[in-house]
């Protein structure tokens, strides 16, 4: 192996490992961002959501819907954001059971708080959906104002 080829090899190795490292770092950062969001979201959940949806997200028979194993939580993010922003005032059927309490609007929460609390519920109680970003809440809020 001559020096030139060895140099190219070495250079590409350095470049490649650098890129790999950057990617791992980015992933780690994203994970830690999600973890922070979940932690912040838990605080919002305890203060705002827990009295009705319970600590385990199990809800209350006939009244307050569970946040476990339902497409309302792990499905379309925009629909979920809208529920928090505007409240919910109709009977909802989840896994064969009906829940009928009125949920008040929580548009007083910031985009960040809503993103955090939704990220928290989408990654708790056995749910494994992806995070909600504050920018997504901003978008839905702006759209529903029109």
């Amino acid at each position: 192996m001559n020096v030139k080829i060895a140099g190219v090899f070495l250079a590409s190795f350095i470049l490649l490992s650098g890129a790999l490292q950057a990617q791992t770092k980015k992933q780690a950062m994203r994970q830690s961002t999600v973890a922070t969001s979940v932690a912040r979201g838990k605080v919002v959940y305890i203060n705002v959501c827990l009295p009705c949806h319970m600590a385990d997200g199990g809800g209350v028979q006939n009244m307050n819907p569970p946040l476990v194993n339902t497409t309302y939580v792990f499905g379309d993010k925009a629909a979920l954001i809208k529920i928090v922003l505007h409240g919910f005032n109709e009977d909802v059927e989840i896994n064969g059971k009906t829940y009928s309490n009125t949920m008040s609007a929580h548009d007083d929460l910031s985009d960040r708080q809503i993103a955090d609390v939704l990220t928290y519920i989408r990654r708790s109680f056995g749910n494994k959906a992806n995070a909600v970003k504050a920018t997504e809440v901003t978008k839905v809020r702006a759209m529903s104002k029109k």
Partner: protein
Amino acid sequence: MSFKLAKNDNSVRGHKTVSAGLTLPEGFQAAIIADNLGSARHLVATPQGDIYVHLAGTKNGKGILEFHVDGDKATLKSSFANFGGTGIAIKDGYLYASNSREVYRYKLDDKNEVINPDKPERIVTGLLDRRTHAPKAIALDNDGNLYVNIGAYSNICSEYDPNKTGCPILDSAGGIWQFKADKLDQTYSDGVRYATGLRNVVGLAWNQQDNQLFVMQHGRDELHDLFPNLYTVHQSAELPAECMFALKKGDNAGYPYVYYDWIQHKNMLGPEYGGDGKKPADSKYINPVAAYPGHYAPDGLLFYTGNQFPEKYKNGAFIAFHGSWNRAPEPQAGYCVVFQPFKDGKPDGNWEVFADGFAGTEEQKASGHAIHRPCGLAQGPDGSLYVTDDNKGTIYKITYKK
């Protein structure tokens, strides 16, 4: 009037027995006589040993189930009514039953069997059903009147009274309405608002001793959530009281302006209307005759007139507490049948838990995910006590042996 609410005072007395999963005072036994019925709400018993059970929704298209009870076994005799609901009562040869908008009645034969299950008479129609507190529990007096609860379709009316000028929904909800027991198709304009300022009543009963209507009010929720500066999480779990009222025509129990604080023994001005947890309410609002811890959710009320149970139970009240949800993050509570001693037609002395253990384990109770939730009460012809559970649809029969 005296009632103390120190918690330790109220657990099941004396030597307890455990029977059919329930904890009862010594000498009492429970049996599960039917199970998995669906959401069994109120029930009524006949002198012939039958019971009619009203389901919240229909099962196979039927909302009322009739059983014959023989000892510890209930055998399904018939099912009818194309509507689910809560209220059910027997008076003067008729079976009355309600859904969320209407009250019907079925003529009974001399064995208290429904003569024509497909053709009930519609007695009341057009009542408001806005989902929240929609069930229309019923009771009848001895003078041909029917009493119907029309619950407030709101926690505390704040969304309907933003300027605090007076809760507008009280004209057609948040009270007990009186109708004629035998007149067809009555609506609001045919009825009388018998008592107002009652947030929601599910357990109600006519007291034969003093010829008066008694009701159990479900108190408001969210004192802390709405007023974190005035009420701690713990206060919000314990307050306000669940109240027993003895009603007279024209009474106002004060919802949404007032709540009862069982720790201070006082009617308080609600925080939405300038209260701060210390200011008392206007004395024009009636006081409860007995009060119980917050959010226990009284769903059934029965005055015991049988001879089977020991003498102290005679003419006293049994209350079925459905169990709480608005005590989180504190442990949930309730899920029991309480006995309230009475003397001369009024509460006298401390209440005590009579039947406990419906919820299951302590963890199931604390989390609110109870297995069974007491709802309806009835007295059998032999003085046995029936309790329905509207979660699993279990019917218990409680008996006493000396």
